[in-house]
């Protein structure tokens, strides 16, 4: 059963500098599954988590599970991104921690195809759901469409889990709203140096929402210390864009170099947090629809590239970021589609840009180290000029 109180797990991973502890993902989920919690495996990135919570289903997200890609290659083309490959590898193992099924949001064609493949061709013992997010920005059509798919998904879940308790849905929306408010405040604090947290810890905290119960995640956020006075500014200020944060090794390396990631435009980061604070939910359906459309612009939701550019430059200004790092996942079509023009526009504004390509392996190549270090040298020169 989904708890809205603090979950008692042995927090076995203590992050330094942060003075708060974040439980290890697989240990945590194992304990949770053993306690009888319903757990659904959700593929990236946007899905109505509140609806699942209202049915007492814990949504745990599958982005880049560890382990080698062995069996998945047999089902996928070579030009498919590693997120899809790693997810399929994970699903093929039919892990015990997932007991309520899999949910495939329509983030991109690759994930949509994977959903169909898992459902119709490969087959797993658990139910497979799809959720077709609307593409394009806020308008009458898209909002109506979004409300419809929310209601349809609710009906689908009701056929399995019984009627939805409206009070539970409202409580889930209120919880979601609280989490968003904390995340917005933390993000703001990071932009203005009011957060004593290094790059590695910051993204550990962001990514903990992928697997912690919302109540546990909220209590983690409540412990984050937002400083009254700004702390010392990093030697160079960087913004990161892409799907996932850079790997831990890159984050550690940036920490060593004294480069602070002061803002991000990551699908697994700030693109999941509303652009501005929303009113406390009253009607769940209105709230969920509004929330979807006040999320920052994203390559996976189509829409206007100018809007994305405008959003990026607002974040860069607010955080005084000096340069942009595009951490591109190999073969990620939606991101590649926007990337060229984003780079061109930033370069025209004399903003230093570095693009790295990742296959999500934990090792950082010597060449990438040199790229990062050389890019940092440009930023340091700028800072000292």
């Amino acid at each position, binding site marked *: 059963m989904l708890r809205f109180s603090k979950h008692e797990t042995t927090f076995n991973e203590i992050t330094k500098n942060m003075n708060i502890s974040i439980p290890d993902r697989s240990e945590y989920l194992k304990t949770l599954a053993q306690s009888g919690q319903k757990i659904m495996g959700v593929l990236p990135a946007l899905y109505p988590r509140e609806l699942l919570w209202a049915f007492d289903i814990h949504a745990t997200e599958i982005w880049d599970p560890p382990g080698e890609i062995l069996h998945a290659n047999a089902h996928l083309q070579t030009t498919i991104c590693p997120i899809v490959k790693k997810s399929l590898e994970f699903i093929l193992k039919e892990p015990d921690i997932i007991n309520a099924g899999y949910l495939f949001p329509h983030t991109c064609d690759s994930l949509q195809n994977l959903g169909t493949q898992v459902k119709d061709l490969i087959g797993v013992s658990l139910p497979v759901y799809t959720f077709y997010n609307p593409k394009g920005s806020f308008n009458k059509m898209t909002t109506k469409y979004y409300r419809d798919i929310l209601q349809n998904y609710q009906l689908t879940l009701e056929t399995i889990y019984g009627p939805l308790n409206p009070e539970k849905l409202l409580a889930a929306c209120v919880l979601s709203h609280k989490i968003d408010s904390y995340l917005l405040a933390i993000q703001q604090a990071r932009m203005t140096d009011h957060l004593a947290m290094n790059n590695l810890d910051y993204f550990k905290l962001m990514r903990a929402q992928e697997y912690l119960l919302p109540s546990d995640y909220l209590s983690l956020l409540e412990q984050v210390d937002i400083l009254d006075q700004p702390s010392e500014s990093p030697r160079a200020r960087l913004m990161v864009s892409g799907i996932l944060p850079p790997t831990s090794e890159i984050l550690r390396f940036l920490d060593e170099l004294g480069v602070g990631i002061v803002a991000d435009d990551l699908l697994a980061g700030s693109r999941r947090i509303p652009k501005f604070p929303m009113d406390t939910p009253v009607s769940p359906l209105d709230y969920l629809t509004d929330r979807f459309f006040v999320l920052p612009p994203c390559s996976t939701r189509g829409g206007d590239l100018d809007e994305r550019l405008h959003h990026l430059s607002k974040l860069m200004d607010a955080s005084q970021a000096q340069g942009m790092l595009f951490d591109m996942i190999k073969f990620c079509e939606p991101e590649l589609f926007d990337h060229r023009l984003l780079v061109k526009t930033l*370069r025209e504004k004399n903003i*230093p*840009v570095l693009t790295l390509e990742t296959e999500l392996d934990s090792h950082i*190549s*010597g*060449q990438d180290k*040199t*790229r990062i*270090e*050389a890019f940092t*040298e*440009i930023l340091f*020169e700028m800072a000292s000029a």
Partner: protein
Amino acid sequence: MADLYFAGVDVGSLSTDVSIIDHSGKVLSEIVIPTGVNGSEAAEEAFGSALNLADLTREGITAITATGYGRASVAFATGKTTEISCHGVGAHQLFPRTGTVIDIGGQDSKVIQIDSHGRMLDFTMNDKCAAGTGRFLEVMANRLELDLDELSSPLNIKGESAPISSTCTVFAESEVISLLAKNTPREEIVHGLQRSIVNRIWSMVTSIGVEGEVTLTGGVAHNKGLVALLEEKLGLTLNIPENPQTVGALGGAHIARRAYQSNLESPTN
């Protein structure tokens, strides 16, 4: 500021290069040796030889910048900077009107844009493979049973070039094998290989653009045939340093000098 000396030590994938300068920037000695299997030993050896050549002792050097892919292994360095910045600074010292630097080394090739002070503005670097690098040429020289001088002789500038469509070392090597089997003259093959590298470099150049004069650094700048083809492709005359392999080390020495000077000038001193 008499009697102040600065050094740059560039531990590259193939060569380890040292440059020693005095306080005015005058070059006192330059050394190039093969890196071999142990970067830190190569750094020690090259530094020792450069000191001998300049008639200096280790204690006489005020500051030393380590650079190159083995920069972290230079225990005696006082600072480290990437070879990308160092090639920019080095090229600026030799050719002050340089706006673009192309460094083609053993394992990496880079295109670097610098401003009128030699500060790096932007750069691009080849991917993991050896395409478009000196290593590519070495593999092919081996296959053609030519030494590097033969592979770069100006004889290869003119004449037919054999079609080599791959930039990938492995595929290009098999293309070379089949061309040899068809009795294609070796010079035509060499020409085709040079063209393949030039095309690869060209695509990197176009991704960041050409500004100002273009200076070619790194060991491949010794390859006269390739230089001629690159000039033809870019439609300009390249600045070729007398010793293209030590440009990174020279840049490192100047960075050490600048760091020392700005430290002196800083208000806390």
